[in-house]
């Protein structure tokens, strides 16, 4: 699934996926370097728990389960992340300082019946 990240937005090609293996192909349109993190959570995408700094997400919080991440995608580059996602709600976000609160988050839903007739 193609995902575009830029200052300060994450735009997935689709918000509903079928369960099983998925490859995220993440392209950074810049101008900054970004991270790409996938976390399973029941929380709303703009309500993830923050660290004490109040600016970045607490990735160790029991309220979310990080299932995969790309540490760094430089402007103009594309990186891929292959995951096997069971059905559920996932939030895609960038956790560089000020990026998540600046709007870099998106919700995707993985359904066992998605894409089937």
């Amino acid at each position, binding site marked *: 699934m193609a995902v575009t990240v830029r200052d300060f937005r994450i735009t997935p090609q689709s918000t509903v996926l079928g369960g099983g293996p998925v490859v995220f192909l993440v392209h950074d349109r810049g101008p900054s370097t970004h991270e790409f993190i996938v976390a399973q959570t029941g929380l709303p995408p703009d309500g993830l728990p923050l660290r004490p700094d109040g600016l970045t997400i607490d990735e160790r919080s029991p309220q979310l389960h990080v299932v995969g991440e790309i540490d760094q995608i430089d402007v103009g580059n594309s990186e891929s992340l292959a995951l096997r996602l069971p059905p559920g709600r996932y939030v895609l976000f960038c956790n560089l*300082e000020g990026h998540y609160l600046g709007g870099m988050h998106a919700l995707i839903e993985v359904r066992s019946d998605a894409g089937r007739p």
Partner: protein
Amino acid sequence: MRVGRNLARLRLDRRFGVIIALFLVLIGLIVGYNARATAKQRDTALIINVAARQRALAERYIKDVLLKVEGYRADPQEDAAMLRDTAQALLVGGDVLAVQGADADVHISPTTGDWKVVAKLRQERTLIDKLITTGNGVLLFGHTSPDFDHQVLQLRVIGAQVSSTTNDAVGETKQAEASLEHLVWVGIALGLLGALAAIAMGLLLRRAGAQQTAQFRSLVQGASDLVTVLDDEGRIRYQSASVEAVLGLQSSDVLGRKL
């Protein structure tokens, strides 16, 4: 015969000329490359230093806005002016003033290199404008704004984005500098070529010396004139065959003796 000798000398002189010219070009290139690498390193160090100061200034601006809103003495406008001027200087070059005497005024050269560095510095400038606009809103309405808490959070978020983007630009600058490491190898290659040119010049000089000696010997040995070569102390170092033939003095008897 003479024409042939002259031609040989001309060829030798030309070879000398070519090698000396090559040597001078190589020396010029080595000096030029070193100067360029040194200037680049200086610019990178300055940008890293100024960018670090920019992060501290953004934090101080936010703190001063909040202090001013609470009625304390603070001058966020001064911070804002410095932030804007520095962001502009990082992008297009210019003078950066010292922050309250904590460091020295510096001059930054325009960023003309990596497009990624330029893109990130442009973004930093945009974010600083956004930070100052948000700060002005907080200063203007203060606690009377129903949106005060949200505005303060926005201020902190944009401040963090400035910090993150500045770090990013510094990282990109370091990476761009690392890509200039090939200049070191170019310098080494040029140095080796210079050494080879020096060796070639030495060999040519030696050959020219041997040629001159051979020419001298053939000229003197074949002549009927009596020729004796003395050193500074008057000792006989050489005598022509004609001396032996005319005077009967054997070279083995007279060489090394004072005249």
